[in-house]
């Protein structure tokens, strides 16, 4: 029992130490603050935009606010996450860590946890600004926290993707691939909805359906529409969405750890 407990404590302390450093490193990034400033500006602008749309201030502020949070947290995940592993290798600072008894898998996990923490702080700041704007227009609803939870789930997936590509490719390639994942994840819903009615051959239709089930669907992790229209979330949706996210994260982090373990760093 004692060695297991000890190894678990070691595991936690190592992962936490790497995560804490990743957090410190990431919050020093200029990109982080530039994107945060733009997002806060746009959230403030939603207040003005709301008054241009006769009588539907609350809906516009909610829609613009939640969309801004989604777009900008995704951009932050992409731009901050892409170089996290690669730059450690490029600058050879990774040797300081790997020379200690730290497993490469723990390094990946620590990096992931650190980046996720940065993004959650970012998300919390944006949600606070959106709440303030909603209070100003007299349309605050606690359901924006539920919407933020689903945005956090999406960020968990996106961060895992960014870490995966960062562990196997250069920052530019990694940025392109992560951005492509985000775009595919948010457009795959359109396959059965927009593309399927235009395909006539049975084989083509089967291919479109198969493609849709193979590709990730990040829109499934969004409840923006339900929050904007005060509609309830279907029972069982939240645990399933959480499980879907965790599965994705486990798969991606395992792949990252495996590829990073096999990588020759000398």
């Amino acid at each position, binding site marked *: 029992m004692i060695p297991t407990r000890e190894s678990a404590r070691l595991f936690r302390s190592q992962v936490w130490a790497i995560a804490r450093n990743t957090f410190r490193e990431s919050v020093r990034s200029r990109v982080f603050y530039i994107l945060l400033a733009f997002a806060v500006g746009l959230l403030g602008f939603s207040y003005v*935009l709301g008054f241009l749309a006769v009588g539907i201030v609350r809906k*516009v502020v909610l*829609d613009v606010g*939640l969309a801004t949070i989604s777009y900008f947290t995704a951009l932050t995940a992409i731009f901050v996450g892409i170089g996290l592993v690669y730059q450690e290798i490029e600058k050879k600072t990774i040797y300081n860590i790997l020379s200690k008894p730290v497993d490469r898998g723990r390094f990946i996990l620590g990096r992931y946890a650190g980046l996720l923490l940065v993004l959650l702080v970012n998300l919390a700041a944006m949600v606070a600004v959106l709440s303030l704007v909603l209070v100003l227009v007299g349309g605050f609803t606690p359901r924006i926290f539920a919407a933020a939870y689903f945005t956090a789930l999406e960020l968990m997936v996106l961060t895992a993707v960014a870490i995966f590509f960062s562990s196997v490719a250069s920052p530019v390639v990694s940025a392109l691939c992560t951005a492509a994942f985000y775009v595919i994840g948010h457009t795959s819903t*359109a396959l059965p909805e927009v593309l399927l009615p235009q395909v006539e051959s049975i084989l083509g239709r089967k291919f479109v359906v198969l493609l849709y089930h193979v590709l990730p669907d*990040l829109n499934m992790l969004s409840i923006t*529409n339900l929050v904007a229209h005060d509609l309830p979330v279907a029972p069982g949706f939240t645990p399933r969405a959480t499980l879907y996210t965790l599965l994705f994260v486990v798969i991606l982090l395992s792949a990252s750890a495996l590829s990073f373990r096999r990588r020759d760093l000398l």
Partner: protein
Amino acid sequence: MSLRHALALILLAALLVTAGSLHSSLADIRAGYSDEFRSYYIPSSGYMKVASLGQRNFWADLIFVWAVQYFDRYGEEVRGANLLRTFDTLTDLDPRFFEAYIFGCLFLSLDQEWDALYRLADKGIALNSKNWLLPWEAGTYAFFQAKDYEQAARYFQIAHDRNPGEILIKDMLANSLKYRGDYGRSLDFWTKIRDQFEGDDSPRGRFFRLAADRNIFDLRVKIDLRRLEAAVAAFSKERGTLPQRLSDLVRDGFLPGVPMDPYGEPYLYDPSSGEVRCSKPFNFRGAYGQW
């Protein structure tokens, strides 16, 4: 200040002036575009669904703000072609965007685009299955502006099915049925309204009772006149001449009996023209209306 700095400043100022003149020339070119050109900027809803990257409500809101703010800037002929498309696109992106249907119908009614209005309203009604306000709005446009009582009755019937307790909807449904020529159903509705306000002496109660009395009177007369005129026409077709009296219709089997008007008096008949009419119009303070 060194010469290099001064030269750099002059160069910068020259670039700024060039940019300014380019800006005004671009603005001139842009002003020359027709309104139609600018309104083509809204892509199809299929494209927007893909390009919105999951944030469909956000893009629907932006198109809505654009549509509301710029409605006045376009000529009617341009609006007519693009208004439905604009609201169709944004309601494809956010099908529960109720205000978009309401404003879309308002704008289409101002341009008297009735078919487009019915299409947009039908889409909103189908996608917002519990909402009664949209069929109510569409019904009022059809009734008061388009004078399309067929459509008005259809919309008020939907509104009534969704909100059976609202008296204004019952009132408008009964009216549109009457104007459509469905006197029997209209009479049923007005009789129910009359019963609902029996003994209610509030201003609202008296208002609806009077409206019901007037319409019940009118509808009874219309139903009787329709039957009498049909019988006169059938008599004339078979015999080649008009009946001399209304009782001739009963005698020759064209009617089971001659109806009396709501005052209990016989209808007036002109044997030279075959015209049938009521003895007296509805009396607001008379014996029939309980006012």
